[in-house]
């Protein structure tokens, strides 16, 4: 898979950053709120003085005005630990516009946004390997060529059980703040189990659902043999207008189920079309979906 990313293609994303609902905890130096109070200039609140408090933090102006000892509470800023999950199953490599190629470009853009804000970015591939293919963590923009090169070497790996993959992909001992899953979610029963297991270990989760135009509006007619990209099963079908209408209805319902599945668990869900320009997806769809700001 060849990723064609120009050197300054991501410049337009310099002002973007990830939106997280939980405090960051990947270490000082970032731009996100920390859950740990720390001496800094970021004022948050006052609280009554208690024995043992540092007298340097007492606001003597307030004491002069009110006659009570109040201590200034400040908050530190920390880096965010972002994990980007890329679905590498063969269903992502289908159609004239490869969803996998589009998803890899999107992952590269998200990684760029992360490292531009000095976040710790890791990339994990949902494949059948143990341990799974992983890149990172990346923390500096200078490592972007290495990241793009790693993504270029990715190839579809065949059948992948998304539920099982999501359950085991986050390694024990690591507690990322934000996980972004980029996938087509092609699983007959949905990926609720996998998302549930992931959500139990990750405080903030976002799903980017990639859909190709051939899936939305297939242009088929006559006698066809449908060939499953992952299982290699074959289904002989006589395609009629009625068949296509039924498929579109089923696909729309399936998409809605996936969106409901995520939202019901407090997971941000963004559906993007693989045919759309990358910039439009990043600047419009992901911002509108609350993944970026």
């Amino acid at each position, binding site marked *: 898979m060849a990723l064609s990313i120009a050197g300054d293609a991501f410049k337009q994303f310099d002002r973007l950053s990830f939106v997280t609902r939980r405090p960051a905890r990947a270490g000082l130096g970032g731009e996100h709120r920390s859950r740990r109070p720390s001496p800094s200039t970021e004022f948050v609140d006052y609280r009554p003085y208690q024995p043992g408090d540092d007298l340097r933090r007492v606001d003597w102006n307030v004491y002069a005005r009110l006659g009570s000892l109040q201590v200034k509470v400040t908050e530190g800023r920390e880096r965010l630990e972002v994990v980007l999950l890329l679905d590498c199953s063969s*269903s*992502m490599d*289908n*159609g004239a516009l490869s*969803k996998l190629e589009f998803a890899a470009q999107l992952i590269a853009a998200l990684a760029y946004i992360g490292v531009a804000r000095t976040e710790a970015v890791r990339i994990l591939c949902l494949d059948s390997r143990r341990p799974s293919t992983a890149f990172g963590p990346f923390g500096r923009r200078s490592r972007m060529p290495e990241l793009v090169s790693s993504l270029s070497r990715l190839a579809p790996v065949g059948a992948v059980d998304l539920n099982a993959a999501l359950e085991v992909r986050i390694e024990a001992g690591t507690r990322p703040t934000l996980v972004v899953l980029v996938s*087509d979610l*092609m699983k*007959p029963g949905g990926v609720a189990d996998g998302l549930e297991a992931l959500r139990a270990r990750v405080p903030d989760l976002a799903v980017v659902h990639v859909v*190709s135009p051939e*899936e939305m509006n*297939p242009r*088929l007619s*006559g*006698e*066809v*043999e*449908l*060939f*499953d*990209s*992952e*299982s290699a*099963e*074959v*289904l*002989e*079908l*006589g*395609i*009629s207008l*009625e*068949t296509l209408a*039924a*498929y579109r209805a*089923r*696909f729309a319902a*399936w998409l809605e189920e996936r969106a409901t599945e995520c939202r019901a668990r407090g997971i941000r869900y963004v559906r993007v079309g693989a045919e759309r320009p990358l910039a439009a997806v990043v600047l419009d769809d992901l911002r509108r979906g609350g993944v970026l700001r």
Partner: protein
Amino acid sequence: MTLLAPVALAALVVPVVIYVIHWLFGSRRRVRVPALFLWADLPQARTGRSRRRIPPFTWLLLLQLLAAALAAVALARPVGPHEPPRHLALVFDASASMQATDVSPTRFEAARARALDRLNALTSLDLVSLVRAGREATLITTGTADGVRSAILALQPGRTAPAIREALALASTEVAATPERRGQILLLTDGAWPPPESIGPLAAPLEVGAVGGGSENQAISSVVVRMDPTGRGQTAFVEVANQAEHAARVPMRVLADGAPLDERQLDIAARTRARVSIPLPVDAHHVGVRLLGHDALALDDVQDTIAPGGPPREVDLLGRASDGLRRAVESIPSLHVRAADAALPPDLTVLAGVLPPQLPSGPLLVIDPPANSGRLLGVGLGSGARVQVSHPLLQGLDLAALQDENPSVAGVPGWAHVVLGTLQGPLIMEGRLEGHRVVVMTFNPGVSGLEKSLAFPLLISNATSFLLSRSEVAATESGEAFDPAESDIAPRPIPTFPSAAPVTEASNGASDLWPWFLTACLVVLGAEWLVFARRG
């Protein structure tokens, strides 16, 4: 465009079969989808299996049909219409040297294989003439390549020098008879013959297919047995030639009446001859000489002759025999002139000035026959002006003694071969006439004074020896005597023979178009594979 193998067009049934296969089994388009569960149990149209429909002409089907059709046409061997049919004259050198085995199995077989290869490249429209250059040039057959093939397979080499000049002239005449065809003469030879006299421009370009090339041969040049002057013994004079380019040691064995008599080794320098004399018993009759070494030509390693020893042979002198002729015959120790009314048939009959309607039995020596005899009518053109210096009839003879003779016949009869001839006609001929071995001297030796010269008894002795030895020893042979000149099997430079026709590039036949069709077929197959691979 002409098809050389139109029966191959039956292969055009293959595209029909391909279409029927598509019709019977359908050709579903294979489409790759991310997952099948979204398509399961959808309402669908009736499938092609339940009701057969005419298969759509997809690119794949069209390319398959086109490839099969192109292959079928290629099998039919189309040829371009612009090229005129050819007339190929095959001239086979059927001389004795073509039996040399320096090319496996023989030079003649190599030439035969080359000729058959050339025939394979011809079309059914082409014409082939087959000319055999043996002692005479003979047109074997003219016809299509398939018809001539069997004649080539039946062709056999002879034991004499090739009549190359006459054969080329005959081939040229044949080609000239079909001016509408593009002619070509192919001479298949080993080149072991001296340059012929000028033949003039040929009617078609000449291509020489040379076979062989070695000179590794030793030969018995001559075997002559003479009675000793004392009459108490005989001596065989044997001459052995080494034609190779290096010295050779040749084992030789002499047989007398079938029993080994002498065996010795002869050391002979390159391109020279060795002569030995071997005493024989006075009563030895059949004398044979064998070379026991291995060389390229076996024909000249064996020679048999009749010795003058043994009981004398009975000779009848009929007609107007002169005293000189009678004396010459009677002086030969092995002959006995008997009375004409003897009951038993003679061993040899000498006919002087007569040629009776009913020929006597046995070999005949005919001297000065009546010129008006139908048996001596010449056929064809030419007077037979030639000299076969190595022929046994002329052995040891001073030909100057015959230069004043005038032949009584002008042409060469069909049954005869000229041994010595002039522009006025043949002087000495030999052949087989009505089943008899015959030597004819077409002049009266008494007129020119030849009878009184030393050459006459020698000529009569050679003739009687030739007739008796041929009749007794070589009765089973085909009638051709081995030409000793053929022992030199080394090729000579082949002269150029000018052609009146423009020289065109030698081609193996008409312009075949099947390679183009086959190439197109392969290209279409490649495109079909591409379409199939892209479709998934």
